[in-house]
Structures are given as C-alpha cells and as structure tokens.
C-alpha cells in the first residue's frame, strides 16, 4: 500500500473509530447536556475522518470512495491505535479515553502546521479549532473527577490504570510514517509525545490523579492487529453497508 494512503488511514481511523465509540454513548449520557456534548465531539471527529478518507481514496485512485474506505475494510485493514477502540465501560472511562485522545489530537494537529503536505495542513487548521474545545472539555472533566467525590476519583483512577497501557502506541511511528519523514509529510511523533506527556502530567497533578506504576504497554492497532473488541465494533459499524451494499442517503 502507498505510504501516504496508509498514513492517512492511520489518522482517519483514529478519528473514525473513536467517533463510533462516542456515538454508541449517544442517548446514554449521564444527562442531556453531556449526551449532546459527546455527540458533538463524535460529529467533529467524523468530519475530520471523512475529509481524510476522501483524500486517501483520491490518492489511492482505485475507484474506491471515502465511504468505501470507512466501511468496507476487514479488521486487519484498519490502522487505528488500540486506545480508540476500547469499549465504553463507564463515564469516567469514556472521558479518560477522550482526554488521552484529545491531547494527542491537539498536539498532532498542531504539528501538521509544519507538514509539507498542504492537504494535511488545511485539515489540521480546520480541526484544531474543534479539538481545542475538545481538550478543554475533557481536561475539565479530569479535574472534576479527581477533585470531586471519592467515587468519582476512584472511577477516574481505575480508568487511567486500565487505559494507560494503550498510550505508548500513539507515539510509535509506523513504517509508512517513517518513510514519509524525509519529505516532511509526516510529523515527528516524539515532539507530540513530549507535549502530550507534559499536558497529561499537568492535568493529572491538578486532578490529584496518578499514572499507574505498572508501565506494561500493548500495541498492534497501527499494523492492523486489534484487541478482541474491534470485531464487535466493526460488526455493528458495518452492519448497514453489509446488509444493504447499495444503500444511499
């Protein structure tokens, strides 16, 4: 597969799979306002994914549409990081996952300002406005959890402990990513990592929450090797395209 297409898919899949997880929570939010807020974030992420899928389909030039890329691939052809596919356990879990992802997106998109790829530059400029709002919301939830009640703090800490093992993978460059470095299309994930760590440390400190002592890490998503949850996610997400391949709306 073309490096640029692969690289685009990694970015788009991260946004798309997370947006699907958030959409699963639609109508199940803790209260109406939060429900709408989560759905808004899901829609922002779909918008980001859609524009990248369309461009990837155009570059690939194999007669596929952006929708085909979004909905008609097998599990091992999705390249999102494992963090984004982890299922919604409770609200703290959803928000901690979101905080990790928003912080990553924020610094990733910021770096794209210096990419030589004008498409990525434009997409990043547009999305950065949205993501700046996302990171504000999820950071504040971390503070609220950590400085809230004993239960909220415990739930947030549990979520951090179980999601931490998926964070390193975000910063591990894929082969395609490395191949695009010479031309300055892809950006340096080490920079993103250092900014991410700084922000996460700061918010955890202010929230009186902590990183787990166990530093064990899992990875695989970027090479198409997913956790056991991915199959179920895709079964639901691809249901409509599978059952009605010609469906249009």
């Amino acid at each position, binding site marked *: 597969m073309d490096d640029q297409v692969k690289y685009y898919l990694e970015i788009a899949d991260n946004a798309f799979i997370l947006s699907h997880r958030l959409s699963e929570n639609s109508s*199940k*939010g*803790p*209260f*109406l*306002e*939060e429900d*709408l*807020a989560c759905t*808004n974030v899901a829609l922002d992420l779909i918008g980001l994914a859609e524009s990248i899928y369309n461009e990837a389909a155009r570059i690939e030039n194999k007669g596929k549409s952006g929708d085909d890329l979004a909905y008609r691939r097998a599990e091992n052809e999705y390249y999102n990081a494992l963090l984004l596919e982890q299922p919604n356990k*409770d*609200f703290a879990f959803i928000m901690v996952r979101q905080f990790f992802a928003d912080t990553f997106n924020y610094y990733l998109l910021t770096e794209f300002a210096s990419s030589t790829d004008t498409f990525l530059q434009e997409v990043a400029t547009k999305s950065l406005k949205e993501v700046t*709002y996302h990171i*504000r*919301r999820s950071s*504040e939830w971390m503070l*609220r959890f950590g400085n809230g009640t004993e239960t909220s703090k415990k739930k947030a800490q549990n979520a951090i402990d179980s999601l931490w093992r998926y964070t390193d993978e975000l910063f591990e460059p894929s082969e395609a990513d490395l191949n695009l470095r010479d031309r300055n299309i892809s950006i340096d994930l080490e920079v993103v990592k250092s900014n991410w760590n700084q922000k996460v440390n700061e918010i955890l400190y202010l929230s009186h929450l902590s990183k787990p002592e166990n530093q064990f890490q899992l990875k695989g998503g970027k090479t198409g090797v997913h956790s056991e949850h991915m199959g179920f996610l895709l079964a639901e997400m691809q249901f409509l395209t599978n059952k009605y391949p010609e469906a249009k709306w």
Partner: protein
Amino acid sequence: MEANENQGPLWEVFIQNKPGQPFKHAGSIHAYDKEMAIENARDVYTRRNEGIALWVVPSNAIVAVSASESSSFFEPADDKVYRHPTFYDLPDGVKQM
C-alpha cells in the same frame, strides 16, 4: 449508565447573534460549575451558528416578578398610550426602534 437525578443546578443561557445586538434568552441547562455551564450552553444552544457570544447565569441569581404580582406590575401601563413614541416621526437613520 444510570440516569442521574442530580444534574447540578440550573443556569439560564443568553445568546448574542450579532455584535451590538442585545443578548437574548435561549433557554436553560444544567451544570455543576461555571466552566461546565458555558460549555453545555455552547453544545446545546449554539450548534447551528446561533450566536457569536454567550452568557450563562445561575437561575437562582435571577430576580423575577411572580405571576401573582404581574397585574400590579404591568397592567398600569395598559392605558397610557402617550408613553409610546408613536407621535414622533423617526429620523431615517434610526434603526432597531
């Protein structure tokens, strides 16, 4: 996730849709604190380009005329048409009167 009865206090939302225009009451939302209130207001009421500026006010900070007092407050104005500026010709330059 269980529906939670405790959604936090109520806040009133005011939106300005153009610079210089008055803020208009849009509705109300629940939130636990100021930051959350302004964000919830944004997410619930400004998703379709409704405005460019936003206020939220704790509902209990608003002083209102109760329904039973309404007649003594407002009805005396009913028969005083001379208080309307309808007897004047407005200059062309005046807008939003």
